[in-house]
């Protein structure tokens, strides 16, 4: 039941190794730093009064996050952030290409579409990797991930071409590289 309920959002299983470790403290501190940074960015006031309020508010949010038990590898993925950098430009290029393709189909006179619904393999080791892969599929117009199971993703594609491109497995391999 727990798995099914979580699947509404991410459709992944909570991994067994997500038990509490010393890494939690590091993650809590880095979450605090990130929250404080966002506060400074949004507020733009630097008087001691506002900086003090910021410190209290961020501490409260971190405390609530700790109580909700959402500070784990999945909720606060510090370990893969730098490996995402080479992946994002490639993804952006894919998104641009897919956008042009879908736009052409939308405006073509007889709606040049041939939708398919099929499972594609997802060979990521971690849940987070699978989520990145599934979200990358959805971000690329023309393909939408509709269901996620361990090791495979059910994809609805607007055309056979988009599905064929996904089935070459290039995106799958690149997301696996992001995991390291």
């Amino acid at each position: 039941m727990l798995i099914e309920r979580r699947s509404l959002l991410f459709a992944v299983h909570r991994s067994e190794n997500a038990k509490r470790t010393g890494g939690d403290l590091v993650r809590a501190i880095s979450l605090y730093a990130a929250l404080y940074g966002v506060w400074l960015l949004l507020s733009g006031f630097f008087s001691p009064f506002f900086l003090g309020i910021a410190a209290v508010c961020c501490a409260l949010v971190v405390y609530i996050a700790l109580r909700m038990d959402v500070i784990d590898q999945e909720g606060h993925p510090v370990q893969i952030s730098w490996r995402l950098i080479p992946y994002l430009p490639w993804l952006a290029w894919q998104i641009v290409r897919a956008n042009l393709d879908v736009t052409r189909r939308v405006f073509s006179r007889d709606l040049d579409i041939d939708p398919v619904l099929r499972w594609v393999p997802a060979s990521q080791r971690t849940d987070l990797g699978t989520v990145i892969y599934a979200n990358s599929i959805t971000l690329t117009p023309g393909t939408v991930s509709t269901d996620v199971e361990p090791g495979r993703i059910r994809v609805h594609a607007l055309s056979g071409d988009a599905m064929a491109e996904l089935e070459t497995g290039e995106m799958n391999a690149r997301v696996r590289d992001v995991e390291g």
Partner: protein
Amino acid sequence: MSALIDGLTWLLLLGGGFFVVAGGAGLLRMPDFFTRLHPAGLVDTLGAVLIILGLVLQAGFTQVSAKLVLVLVLLFLTGPTATHAVSNAALVSGLMPWTKRKDND
């Protein structure tokens, strides 16, 4: 320099507007729910990116630009998740995707 930035902004804003309208038109033209998911993606991705980039060009290196980029990041994190959730819910509820060939199983 200013004219160049203005020209680029025009280009980005009109480009973004084009994709936003294309997404809306697709939403109306497509035959069923699952095919409508794809034009919705147009609005979420290039439509949003181009318009926000155009605004960033006009705002320059300021707090406004930082907020605009934050809006973009939020849209990119929540957009696909919401799309996945709605398509998954539709699939689970038994909605069948429209297909071109009637003999498809």
